[in-house]
């Protein structure tokens, strides 16, 4: 179990943890920065100041209770649906690749892609607004076209690691994927 610190595309520190469970099974997880207390307090104070201002204008105390309600509901929704704490990739040779995202509230959403569907794991470039970012993605076989790709599954979308972290993950994945028996459909892996 080794943990190394990298930077995300936006500059925040992220931690990459690698675990080797067996010769054909590896787990790579990227931990995103946690919810900061100061940003939470800033948002809450802004909402409550606005509510107090409205209350001063309208003399209706419902505005204050509505503001508290909105803050609570908004926080719960943010923690349960938006804030991702950890993204992990579990590569099991000859079974498949499992992608898990754990949210701040503890919810985990998992997708498992069978090895027979995986064509390759590559690092791709994308132009996003004014910058070029790198992202790791899984290419899936197209049943109709042996040279084509039916779907591109991007990984680590919320932590957005930079190229150095992605290269580490890429190397780990490729070591396991190399062990695959070359199928008749594969035409020159890597």
């Amino acid at each position, binding site marked *: 179990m080794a943990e190394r610190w990298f930077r995300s595309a936006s500059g925040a520190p992220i931690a990459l943890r690698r675990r080797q*469970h*067996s010769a054909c*099974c590896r787990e790579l997880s990227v931990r995103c920065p946690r919810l900061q207390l100061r940003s939470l307090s800033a948002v809450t104070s802004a909402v409550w100041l606005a509510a107090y201002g409205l209350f001063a204008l309208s003399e209706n105390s419902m505005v204050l209770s509505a503001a508290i309600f909105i803050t609570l509901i908004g926080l719960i929704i943010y923690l349960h649906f938006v804030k991702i704490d950890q993204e992990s990739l*579990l590569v*099991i040779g*000859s079974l498949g690749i499992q992608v898990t995202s754990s949210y701040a509230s503890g919810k985990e959403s*998992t997708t*498992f892609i069978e090895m*027979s569907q995986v064509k390759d794991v590559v690092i791709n470039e994308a132009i996003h607004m004014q910058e070029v970012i790198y992202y790791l993605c899984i290419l899936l076989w197209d*049943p109709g076209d042996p040279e084509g790709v039916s779907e591109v599954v991007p990984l680590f979308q919320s932590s957005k690691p930079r190229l150095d972290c992605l290269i580490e993950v890429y190397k780990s994945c490729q070591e396991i994927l190399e062990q695959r028996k070359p199928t008749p459909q594969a035409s020159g892996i890597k």
Partner: protein
Amino acid sequence: MVLKVFFPSCCSSAESGILVGRWLSEQNSAVVLAVLHFPFIPVQVKQYLSEVQRVTKVSVSVLGSWSNSKQEKEESLSEFLEDLGTIFSHEPWIQISKEGDSKFWSCSTLQKHSTSPKEEEIILVYYDQRKVMLSHLHPPLDTAASTDHEAKDASKLSAIFDTVAKSTVLFMTDRYDDGPIKLTHWQSDGVEASIIVELLKQASVPACMLLTFLLSLISGICRSRVLKFWPLSFLWSKLSTCEQLGHRLQHLQVISSNKKAQNQAQLMRSSSIPMKVNRSLHCASSLSWCPWDIKDAVKANIFVSLLIDVALGILLMSWLYRKNRIGHLADTLIPVADHVAEELQDLLQWLMGAPAGLKMNRALDQVLGRFFLYHIHLWISYIHLMSPFIEMILWYVGLSACLGLTVALCILSDVIALLTFHIYCFYVYGARLYCLKIYGLSSLWRLFRGKKWNVLRQRVDSCSYDLDQLFIGTLLFTILLFLLPTTALYYLVFTLLRLLVVIVQGLIHLLVDLIDSLPLYSIILRLCRSYRLAAGVKFRVLEQQDGKPLRLLMQINPLSYGSVVQTYRLPTYSCYPKDSWTSLCKKLFLGELIYPWKHKGEKQD
């Protein structure tokens, strides 16, 4: 290559014996279904397995040996287990042994005709047999569109689910049976059954027969020639309540049909199903082995939806009839109709004057205004004529709310349509006048330019007109042009009113559609027994020990609520407006009549 052994977690504490299951050679994996205990006679075991294979069409065989020794490893037992490998020839022969209460088992394989001498790695995957058996694996919707042969090849997991689900007959014998074969599986402590479920199953047969009889009576009456005469048939097609009742009747027919729809064609003919459900049914028919049939899901969804609908309808009815609210409603109906008529009259007076400061053509204005005012006067007289009967009619009509909330909403929509019938009439008059004017203007405009519309060739051709033709044409063009603002204004006002009514009716129909098509049973199933609707699997890595095989736990990843609704949506009879916004605007500009909500039964272009 890596060998994968899928082991049921219920057999972890079973006594020593041999492993019975299925070997998937193309995936190099073994699915263990049960453990067969000593003592047994190999001939009887082979006979039993071939019986099971014949019934279930799953190639069940002896895969290897399982030893669970409470004390230290016994040498004689391990030799005995190896010898078993020669009796039940299976390639490779898997040997799993557990010592004491240790979590870490040792697993090895015996290859007699091995081509590669090196040690292959073994992965031990635990799975919950009951959940995997009851679960239905949903392929992603895009692969269901492709041929099912390819889909079967691509999904290896479905083979595993397939194996466990089809082998239900293997799980029927429990350890209290006195037979030569003693198995351990998830039901070996006693076959699960529920008295209530059995009683319901017994009661459902006569109930279905009674329901079928009643439905055939009702549909016979509906199809009788009496109701096919012109005024009645026209009325039935226009009232949305009748559509909804017919739809529900169809649903009842689907539920009460005892035989499952044997082939796709039958199911398709019985109800009009849109493309998405067609695809999911198509893929489900290819996975027809599953105990949880998608056709059962359709029946269950229809049944629950009907039940909830009727319950809500009865609730609404009890609320309406308590404190005589329906009487109050009937009392307010006439004043509301009067009020609407008065508002319309004020509107017409405003139009007859100088509306929004625009100058109208006085003569045409007066003619149109008086015509519409007289129409409203007639309408009010008819309403007042009907007013003593309104309360009684409404009381009896309100009783039909017990047929369901959707029927009550459809009745509301029809009542709105009837009450605003005069607005519809005004819209039609205004639209026709405007349409005539526009066509006349465009034709005479062509005359100005010396062109003509060639009906045969469907194009504009040049034409030389006589002088008197040109003179008359110019006169008519001028008249029509200067009368255009008046007609256009009337058209605009009544179109806006009509659109308002259409929007209100459309919202009610959307609500009815939502109640009709929501698969409540599937949603409740996803909430309570989420393992039955599987989108896939997820693996969890358990504690490892060096030298022992990799241990994984396979759990079921349930379908998301959005996919549940999308897959199990019930088909409805109405379709959404096919006109895009541009064509709608074009129709409005030209004055063509718009029918935004077309029903599937009507002629389609």
